[in-house]
């Protein structure tokens, strides 16, 4: 049986990997939508905002269908591995980071647009300048994504299978132990989870504050 430490470590590894991937994809995507002008942009923004509320079990189901033996990606043999969990959580978190980034960059663009255009910055270059300039505000978007990833159970339990010692994470353990009636264990794991989320947010907040004092 996996130890508490292993469960916590796997939770962190899966969710942090997913958030890292979603950040790398989501920030440029959000910035491009914010600064770009193309047909269908408004539909895309509405869609992206709606996807922030994507139900984890539905994402789990879709990734399950993709990765299951009969599915299009079945040959990769990823189902019921931590990698499958990372894929599912990345899909879940990507719209959150992209949508929040889109909003922040768009607000900044209102302030910076004339100056940047006057200096000759356009398109992608302008978008990346903005992302870098509001990087401390974007920490909030990334944290929202991380909170979502660490807290969800629906996606990881479907694609991971909650296999002891392989794909068992905090939320799936809590669900399992609660149904088994081991409430003290479930509750203590729940407290660990909450403490972790608070600690991560506090650390990020302190870094953000210090940086803002430094750079204005």
């Amino acid at each position, binding site marked *: 049986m996996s130890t508490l430490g292993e469960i916590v470590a796997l939770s962190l590894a899966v969710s942090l990997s997913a958030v890292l991937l979603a950040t790398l994809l989501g920030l440029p995507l959000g910035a491009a939508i914010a600064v770009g002008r193309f047909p269908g942009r408004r539909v895309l923004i509405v869609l992206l905002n709606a996807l922030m509320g994507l139900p984890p079990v539905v994402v789990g189901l879709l990734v399950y269908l993709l990765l299951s033996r009969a599915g299009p990606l079945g040959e990769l043999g990823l189902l019921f591995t931590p990698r499958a969990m990372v894929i599912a959580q990345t899909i879940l978190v990507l719209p959150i980071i992209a949508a929040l980034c889109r909003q922040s960059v768009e607000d900044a663009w209102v*302030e*910076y647009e*004339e*100056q940047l*255009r*006057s*200096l*000759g*910055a356009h398109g992608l*270059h302008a978008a990346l*300048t903005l992302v870098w*300039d*509001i*990087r*401390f505000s974007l920490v909030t978007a990334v944290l929202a994504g991380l909170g979502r990833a660490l807290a969800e159970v629906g996606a990881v339990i479907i694609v991971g299978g909650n296999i002891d010692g392989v794909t068992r994470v905090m939320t799936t353990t809590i669900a399992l132990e609660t149904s088994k009636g081991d409430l003290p264990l479930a509750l203590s794991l729940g407290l660990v989870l909450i403490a972790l989320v608070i600690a991560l947010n506090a650390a990020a907040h302190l870094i953000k504050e210090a940086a803002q004092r*430094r*750079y*204005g």
Partner: protein
Amino acid sequence: MAASGSILPLTLRDAGFAAGGRSIIEGVSAEVAAGPTTIILGANGAGKSVLMRLMHGLLQPTSGVVAWRGQGAERLRRGQAMVFQRPIMLRRSALANILYALELARIPAAERGRQAMDALREVGLAEVAHRPARVLSGGEQQRLALARAWALHPEVLFLDEPTANLDPGATREIENVIKAFDASGTKIVMSTHNLGQARRLGDEVLFIHQGRLVERAPVDTFFRQPASAEAAAFIKGELPWT
């Protein structure tokens, strides 16, 4: 800035700008030539800022023509710079803000550092080169905006009420930098509603009233003998000279 490569004069022919069904600039025809400092004077809401943005190319006229003599969009963009009422600085050092502008202007990397430091020295900010730009005071940030423009060596510099948010001390420093720009041969086009400033810095006045160019005259003539009733009323109402 050889005369052959000059982007001046700038010609406006019946230029107008309307937004949301409301006309903001209407039927402005004027030629802005190299040399004298041009002051765009008018009350708040007269359309000064929009007129400057039409000239600089940030806005496209909805009627009429705004045309430079020079050819090529890239040449035009590099020939001009603009300093806004409120300076927008990136969250990086004062020096890095200028380097960023030089990079966009495709100045070779090897020359950027020297040009940027020269510009900072010119406005008296060399000692805060490595301080984050956003923590500088309002007056320092505006001087930094001028240094950023200076580093680009524009042929034409647009200034949109550059001292509107500043105290008298900072205003004086900004005006000194503007004079240095002028002395170096840069064509200055500045909007203001401050009559004292118009007299101190200007050679000629374009007086804008309700989106129209009402009067154009040398500064002395304009203040001594305004030709239009609107200009006379504006000069009277704006006393004392601040």
